[in-house]
C-alpha cells in the first residue's frame, strides 16, 4: 500500500518544469538596495551626451568659431556623469537630478573658474562673483552683437552653462520622470538661438543631427530603461527596438527635410534676415544693406559713436565698403592676401597724386555702443593712435578690419588727409579712370535690368565729363521725383540689395539710403565711372564737448543708430575716391557736387580752423542740417519689433498648441479607423498632417500607424477611450483588468453611458481574450464598426461634459496621454513582474 501511494502523482517539491528558473534565494539586503548592474545607465548617458553635443553643432552660425565646443563637452559630461553614477543604487536614483546639478556646477567651475575655486573645483563665493561678471559680459555681447558673435570666453561660458542645463533637463525628464519623448524640449532649447538669430536657421544638417540625437535618446530609453526602470544584466542586446527607431528616424528626418520646402520656415517670412535680439549698432550682419535698414527702422537713438574732430562740422564715418555687385546679396569683398597688420603709415591704393593740395584732420573717436569688426574712420586715414587689438588696413577699400578684436569700447585718434576737392579739379578729371582701379570697382553683373541703363543715360543726357555725369546722377536722385522712406521698400518687398531691388526702386521711386547709394553706384558704373558704396555713419549731431589735442581745438559730435548710412564713392582719375550724397534729406551734399548751374555757395561752409590753404571745405565735413533727424524717434514704428513680437508669439502659441493639435489628430484618425476599419490610405494621409506639427508628434503618429495596422476597431476604440480617460486625470492602471478599468472610467462618464461603455468593453474583451477566429472575424481590416465609433463618441462627450472647466482645459492643452504612453502598450508581463 505504501509503495502504491508513493507511486501516485508527482511530489510537489520534486523538480517541476520550472525548477531550473527559480532564483536560488533572495539576495541579501543592502543599505542602498541592490546595485543595478549592466551597461544601461552608461549607454543612456552616452546617448544623451551624443544627442546634446550633436544638436549643439547647430550653434555654428551663432558663434564665430568652435572654441566653445570642448569646454561645453566637458561641462555636459560632468553633468551627466554623477547622475549615471547615482543610478547604480535604486535608493539614490531619485536624487540623480541633484547629482547632475552638482556636476553641472563643478564642471563649470573646473573649466571656467579654476582660479577662484578651492583645489580648482570647489566653488567659492568668488566663483559666483566671477560667473555673474562673465554672464554680464556675455549679456553685453548678445545685446550689442549680431550673429555670428565672436566666441569669446564669456560666450563659451554661456553656451557651456546652457548645454549643461539642457543635459540636466534631458536626464531628469527622460530617466527620472520616464518621459523620454519630452527630451525634445531640451534639444529645441539648443536649436532656438540659431533659429532665431541666423539667416540660415538650423539648416538641414543641424536638424538631422538633432533628430538623430533625439531618436537615439528615445530608442535607448525605450530599450535600456523601459518605464523609467533601468534594465539590469549586461548581456542583453537591443532587439528590434533600435532598428525600428532608426527606420522611424530616417523617415522623420526625410519628411522634415521636405517640410521647409513646402512651408516657410525660420529663414523666411516671420523673421527678416539679419534680425537680432539686441538693438545696438553694428555692421557685421550677413547682408550689410539689410542690416542697415533694420538699424534705421529700429529708430535707435542710443549713441553708437562719439568723436571729437578738428573739423568744424560733423564727419562721415566709414566702416566698410561694398564693391562686388554680383551675387544676390552684396558683400564687402574679401580681404586681399598679404596685408600686414598695423595701422600706421596708411596710404590708399591707387595713391592720391601728391601734387594736390590737401587738408589734414584729426578725429578722436570713441566707439561706445558699437560692436563691429570694422573700424569707423573718416575717409583716407593716414595713421591711427591708441588702438587696441590687431587690425589690418585694406588700402584698396581704405577700410580697417579687425583680426582678433572688435570696436567695442575703443577710443582712438585718427589722422586723415584728404585732397582739397573743387569743381574745377573734378571737372578736369576727364580721363577714363577704369584702368587705375581694381576691376571689381567697374564690373557689373550680366543681369543688370534695362531700366538702370536707360535711367542712367537719361539722367546723364549729353554730358561728357565723368564729373558732370556724376553730379547729374546725384541731382536726378535728389530731385523731387524720389522720396525718402524707410518702410516702403519693406512693404513693397524690395528691401536689401541686388539688381532686382534697384529696378523696383527706380520704378517706385521710394526708398532709403541703401537704395539711393546703390542706384547711384550702379548707374555710375553704367556710365563708366568706377564706384563703390561706403557704409557707416552720416554726420551726427554736435555735442557741447570740446578739447584740445596736439594744439588743435576739437569739437565733440555723436552718431546714433539713426545715423547709420550708406553713400556712394566715385573714382576720378587723378583725384581719387570722392564721396557723393544722392539720398534726399540725409547727410549733407558736398559743395563740389552741388548743381553746376548754381553759384558756388561761398557762405556754405565756415572756414576750418587749421588749414593750409585758403578757405576750402573738407571733403568729409560740410555743414549739415539734415543730421537733425537724430531727434525724431517719437511715433516711429518699430518695424523689426513689429515683426519679431507676433512671430515669437505665433511660434510660442504653435509650440504650446502642438500637443493639443496632435491629440486631436490622433483622436480623429482613431475614430475614422473604428468607423471605416484601418485602410492604409487613412494612415498615410494622417502621417502627413502630423508631421507638420513637430517631430515628436510625427514620431507618435508613425509609431501609432505602425501599430494600428494590426489594430482592429475594437482595440483602437478601447485605446482611445483609455487615452481620453488619461487626459481627464484617470490613467488606466496596468494591474487592473479591462473590466475594472472600465469601472473606473464609469465614474468619469456617469451612469447614463454605461451601455456604451459595456459595448466597448465587451468588444475589446472579445477581441483580445476571445477565440482568435472570432476576434479576427469581428475585426478584419476594412470592417468598420459604426456602433463602436458612436459609443466612443458618446463616451468622450460624456466625459467632457462631466469634467470641470479646469480639467477640460488641461485635457485639451496638455493631454496627458500625449506625454505618457498608454498603459496597455507597456504591458509585457515579465516587465511588470517584480525583479
Amino acid at each position, binding site marked *: 500500500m505504501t509503495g502504491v501511494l508513493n507511486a501516485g502523482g508527482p511530489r510537489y517539491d520534486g523538480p517541476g518544469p520550472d525548477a531550473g528558473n527559480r532564483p536560488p534565494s533572495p539576495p541579501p539586503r543592502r543599505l542602498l538596495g541592490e546595485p543595478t548592474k549592466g551597461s544601461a545607465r552608461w549607454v543612456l548617458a552616452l546617448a544623451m551626451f551624443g544627442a546634446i553635443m550633436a544638436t549643439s553643432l547647430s550653434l555654428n552660425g551663432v558663434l564665430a568659431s568652435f572654441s566653445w565646443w570642448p569646454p561645453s563637452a566637458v561641462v555636459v559630461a560632468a553633468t551627466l556623469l554623477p547622475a549615471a553614477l547615482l543610478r547604480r543604487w535604486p535608493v539614490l536614483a531619485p536624487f540623480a537630478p541633484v547629482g547632475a546639478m552638482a556636476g553641472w556646477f563643478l564642471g563649470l567651475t573646473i573649466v571656467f573658474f579654476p582660479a577662484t575655486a578651492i583645489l580648482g573645483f570647489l566653488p567659492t563665493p568668488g566663483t559666483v562673483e566671477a560667473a555673474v561678471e562673465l554672464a554680464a559680459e556675455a549679456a553685453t555681447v548678445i545685446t550689442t552683437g549680431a550673429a555670428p558673435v565672436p566666441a569669446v570666453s564669456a560666450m563659451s561660458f554661456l553656451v557651456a552653462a546652457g548645454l549643461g542645463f539642457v543635459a540636466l533637463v534631458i536626464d531628469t525628464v527622460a530617466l527620472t520622470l520616464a518621459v523620454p519623448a519630452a527630451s525634445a524640449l531640451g534639444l529645441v532649447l539648443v536649436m532656438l538661438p540659431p533659429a532665431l538669430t541666423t539667416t540660415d536657421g538650423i539648416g538641414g544638417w543641424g536638424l538631422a543631427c538633432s533628430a538623430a540625437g533625439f531618436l537615439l535618446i528615445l530608442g535607448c530609453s525605450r530599450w535600456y530603461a523601459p518605464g523609467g526602470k533601468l534594465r539590469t544584466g549586461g548581456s542583453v542586446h537591443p532587439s528590434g527596438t533600435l532598428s525600428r527607431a532608426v527606420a522611424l528616424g530616417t523617415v522623420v528626418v526625410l519628411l522634415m527635410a521636405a517640410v521647409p520646402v513646402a512651408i516657410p520656415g525660420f529663414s523666411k517670412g516671420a523673421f527678416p534676415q539679419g534680425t537680432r535680439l539686441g538693438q545696438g549698432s553694428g555692421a557685421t550682419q550677413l547682408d550689410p544693406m539689410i542690416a542697415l535698414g533694420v538699424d534705421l527702422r529700429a529708430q535707435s537713438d542710443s549713441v553708437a559713436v562719439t568723436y571729437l574732430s578738428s573739423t568744424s562740422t560733423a564727419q562721415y564715418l566709414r566702416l566698410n565698403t561694398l564693391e562686388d555687385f554680383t551675387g544676390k546679396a552684396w558683400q564687402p569683398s574679401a580681404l586681399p592676401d598679404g596685408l600686414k597688420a598695423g595701422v600706421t603709415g596708411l596710404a590708399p591704393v591707387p595713391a592720391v597724386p601728391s601734387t594736390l593740395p590737401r587738408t589734414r584732420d584729426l578725429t578722436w573717436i570713441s566707439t561706445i555702443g558699437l560692436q563691429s569688426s570694422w573700424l569707423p574712420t573718416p575717409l583716407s586715414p593716414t595713421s591711427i593712435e591708441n588702438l587696441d587689438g590687431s587690425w589690418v588696413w585694406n588700402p584698396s577699400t581704405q577700410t580697417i578690419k579687425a583680426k582678433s578684436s572688435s570696436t567695442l569700447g575703443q577710443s582712438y585718434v585718427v589722422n586723415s588727409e584728404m585732397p582739397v576737392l573743387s569743381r574745377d579739379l573734378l571737372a578736369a578729371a576727364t580721363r577714363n579712370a577704369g584702368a587705375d582701379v581694381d576691376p571689381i570697382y567697374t564690373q557689373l553683373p550680366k543681369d543688370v535690368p534695362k531700366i538702370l541703363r536707360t535711367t542712367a543715360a537719361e539722367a546723364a543726357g549729353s554730358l561728357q565729363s565723368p564729373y558732370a555725369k556724376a553730379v547729374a546722377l546725384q541731382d536726378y536722385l535728389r530731385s523731387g521725383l524720389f522720396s525718402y522712406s524707410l518702410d516702403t521698400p519693406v512693404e513693397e518687398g524690395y528691401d536689401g540689395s541686388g539688381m532686382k531691388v534697384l529696378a523696383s526702386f527706380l520704378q517706385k521711386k521710394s526708398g532709403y539710403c541703401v537704395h539711393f547709394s546703390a542706384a547711384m553706384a550702379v548707374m555710375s558704373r553704367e556710365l563708366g565711372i568706377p564706384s563703390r558704396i561706403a557704409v557707416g555713419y552720416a554726420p551726427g549731431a554736435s555735442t557741447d564737448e570740446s578739447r584740445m589735442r596736439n594744439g588743435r581745438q576739437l569739437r565733440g559730435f555723436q552718431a546714433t543708430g539713426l545715423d547709420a548710412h550708406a553713400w556712394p564713392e566715385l573714382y576720378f582719375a587723378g583725384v581719387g575716391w570722392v564721396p557723393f550724397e544722392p539720398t534726399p534729406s540725409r547727410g549733407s551734399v558736398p559743395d563740389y557736387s552741388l548743381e553746376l548751374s548754381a553759384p558756388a555757395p561761398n557762405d556754405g561752409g565756415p572756414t576750418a580752423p587749421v588749414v593750409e590753404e585758403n578757405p576750402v571745405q573738407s571733403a568729409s565735413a560740410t555743414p549739415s542740417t539734415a543730421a537733425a533727424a537724430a531727434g525724431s524717434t517719437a511715433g516711429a514704428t518699430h518695424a523689426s519689433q513689429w515683426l519679431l513680437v507676433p512671430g515669437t508669439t505665433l511660434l510660442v502659441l504653435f509650440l504650446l498648441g502642438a500637443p493639443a493639435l496632435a491629440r486631436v489628430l490622433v483622436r480623429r484618425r482613431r475614430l475614422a479607423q473604428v468607423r471605416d476599419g484601418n485602410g492604409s490610405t487613412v494612415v498615410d494621409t494622417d502621417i502627413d498632417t502630423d508631421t507638420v506639427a513637430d517631430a515628436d508628434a510625427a514620431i507618435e503618429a508613425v509609431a501609432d500607424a*505602425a501599430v494600428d495596422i494590426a489594430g482592429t476597431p475594437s482595440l483602437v476604440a478601447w485605446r482611445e477611450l483609455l487615452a481620453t480617460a488619461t487626459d481627464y486625470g484617470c490613467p488606466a492602471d496596468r494591474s487592473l483588468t*479591462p473590466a475594472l478599468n472600465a469601472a473606473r472610467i464609469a465614474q468619469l462618464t456617469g451612469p447614463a453611458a454605461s451601455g456604451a461603455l459595456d459595448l466597448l468593453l465587451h468588444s475589446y474583451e472579445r477581441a483580445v481574450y476571445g477565440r482568435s477566429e472570432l476576434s479576427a472575424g469581428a475585426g478584419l481590416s476594412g470592417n468598420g464598426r459604426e456602433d463602436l465609433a458612436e459609443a466612443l463618441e458618446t463616451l468622450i462627450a460624456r466625459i467632457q461634459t462631466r469634467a470641470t472647466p479646469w480639467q477640460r482645459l488641461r485635457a485639451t492643452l496638455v493631454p496627458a496621454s500625449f506625454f505618457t504612453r498608454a498603459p496597455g502598450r507597456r504591458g509585457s508581463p515579465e516587465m511588470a513582474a*517584480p525583479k
Partner: protein
Amino acid sequence: MHPRETMYESEGLASAAPAAAGSTGTGPAGAAPQAAGAAPQAPLLRPRSTKPGPPMDAATFARLSDGIVAAMNTVIDGKEEAVRLALTVLLAGGHLLLEDVPGVGKTLLAKCLARAVDCSVNRIQFTPDLLPSDITGVSVFNQSSQSFVFRPGAIFANIVIGDEINRASAKTQSALLESMAEHQVTVDGTTYLLQEPFMVVATQNPIEMEGTYPLPEAQRDRFMARISLGYPDEAAELAMLESHQSVNPLDSVEAVATAEQVGAMVRAVAAIHVSPAVRAYTVALGQATRNSPALRLGASPRALLQLLRAAKAAAALEGRGFVLPDDIRLLAEPVLAHRLLVERSAASQGATPSGVVAELLGRVAVPGPPNERSG
C-alpha cells in the same frame, strides 16, 4: 478530473498538463478507448457506463448551472459566493477544502451540493483510528467462490465528504489524497477506477488543533480551492433560524442534474477558450508569487493549472466562451492562498497568504492584445 490521467499513473502531473491543455477538442472522444484499454490489466469495479458525448450547448449549461445554484441557495442562506465557488470547483474537476470554525455549514454545503446533483454521496468522518482500508476498500475471501472479493470503501462515490480531515493519521490522509489525484484506487496490486464526476469536499477546523495531523503543504496543493464560509450576516442568520427550525431543508432539495449531465458540463468547461494573454497573466501571477520576498513557498505549476481550470469553469458559469483576466483575479485568492507559505519575518509583520495574493494582484500587469508594441 480528466479520465485520461489514469494512463499516466507514475508520470503524474507533468504529462497531465499537456494532456489537459490539448484536450479541448479531442480529449473526451479520445479518452474513452484509452480508459477501456486500461481495463484488461485492472478489472474495473464499475466500468464507465456511458461514452462521453459532445459538450453541452450553452443554453442547457446555463439552465442546469442556474438550477443547481438556486437549489443550493434555498438551503444555505447568504452564501452565494461560496455556493458558486463550490460549483465552479465541481465543474472544473477539482476538489474543495472547506476550512472554518464548527457550525457554519461546511458539511451542509457539501451535502447540499451532492443533493442538487443526482449522484452518489459518501461521507467519511475522519478520526485518529480511521484506517486507509476504510477509505479505499478491502479484499475479503469469499468462502463460496474460493476467491478474494473486493469490497469498495467509502471513496467509491461521485461526491465524497471528508469531515475534519486533519483528525486522521497521515497514512489515512495519504490514501485519500492519492485517490483524489489519480481518480483511482489500488488495492493488492489491482487498480480500480473511481466514478466520474468525482469530487472530494474536505472540511477542516482551524481552531482545535490538539490531537490533529495538519495537512502538509504538498497535500494541500491537491485541493483546487479553499473556502472559508464565515459567519452569515444578520438577515441571513434570521432567515436560517426561520427555515431550519422545524424541517431539514435538505429534504426539499430536488436533484437538478444527473451525473451524466454534470459530466457533459465538465466537458463543456474544458472547451472554454483561453487566450495567450490570459495564459501569460496566469504565469506572471505564478512568477510573482515565487519571486515575492514575503513568501517562502510560491505557487506550483499545478496550482497555475488548476487556477486556469477553475477560471474556465467560472467563465462557463458566466455564460462566456472565453476566459477573462477578471476570472483569474476572482479565483486567485481561493485557489492560490492555501498553497502559499509566508516568510516568517513577513508573517510577524502581519502578512497573510491572502494579503500577499491581493498585493500581487495589484501589482502584476494585465497583458493586453498580443500585437501591441512592447519593449
